[in-house]
């Protein structure tokens, strides 16, 4: 019984901590973030497994983690609240070439980050060429360029 409870408690604790610290996508992970993730994994593994190294315990922990994940993704489809609590909503950061600075400050994205994404994904050169920049719910930046002259 307690293997299931421990694993579920750890799942929700990690979800809470990661949601509190805000959006960041896998693509933006620095080497140090990666090291931190490994340490977090190590620390939570100890608590989830307890002193029980049996096959059954590992089996139960894995089943619980995957089960909670499944349950939440089922819930996300049906309940808007679960969807938002676990994943948040997308946020527009640039509109018609104008950076929305108060929003960018809130999510700790600066113009350099947006221009980097614009160069990488769309080959854009200047902020004015961006129609929309959106911080997606997975933490990535999407850039939508303005239509070129003549096309619009």
């Amino acid at each position, binding site marked *: 019984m307690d293997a299931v409870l421990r694993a579920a408690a750890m799942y929700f604790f990690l979800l*809470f*901590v990661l*949601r*509190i*610290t*805000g959006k960041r996508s896998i693509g933006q992970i620095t080497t140090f973030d990666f090291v931190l993730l490994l340490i977090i994994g190590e620390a939570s593994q100890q608590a989830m497994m*307890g*002193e029980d190294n049996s096959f059954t315990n590992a089996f139960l922990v894995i089943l619980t983690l995957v089960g909670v994940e499944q349950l939440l993704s089922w819930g996300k489809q049906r309940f808007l609240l679960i969807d*938002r609590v676990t994943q*948040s*909503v*997308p*946020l*527009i950061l640039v*509109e018609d070439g104008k950076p*929305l600075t108060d929003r960018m400050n*809130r999510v700790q994205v600066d113009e350099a980050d947006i221009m980097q994404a614009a160069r990488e994904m769309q080959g854009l050169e200047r902020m004015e060429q961006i129609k*929309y920049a*959106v911080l997606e719910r997975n933490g990535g930046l999407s850039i*939508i360029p303005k239509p070129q002259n003549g096309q619009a």
Partner: protein
Amino acid sequence: MMPDVQRGRELDIDEDIGYQRRSWTAQRVGQAVMALVLLAALAGLLGPGPLSDATARDPGGAALQVEYNRFWRSKSSLTLRAHLGPGAVREGKARVWLSRAYAQDLQIQEVKPEPDSVEIGAERLTYVFSFSTPDGAPAATVTFIGEPEKAGTLRGRMGLENGPTLDFRQFVYP
């Protein structure tokens, strides 16, 4: 909730700035909670630390003092230090007892120095130590090391036979 301009009219996007602002507020609150938990842990409210360290002493004399932790965590090694004063030794023996319920909750694994014998009574476990020093000389410190299994409040009860009884409480986190 609508001081904000509706952005991105041309985008088919489920932006919800009202929800976004509330979630930012929730993040602030969550970060504050995280900071408080860390401060509490540093202070010792979640385990070892200055606010956790405590001493119970008998009001009358200096026969028995116990150093214990108010807050501890299950499955980690918990130490109790009992300081036996001069009055604790009679005829070369000191007889220290713990209530059986407490001894059970504490899951005692080791007693240092090793007692001569342990007597199991209806309510108490009595540990008997021999002394070669004359009665009335400063006595010794006995360390009990346990590892509580269950979370919750432990009601500590320790005493000297024909001497004082000390009561203290410990809270064990899961």
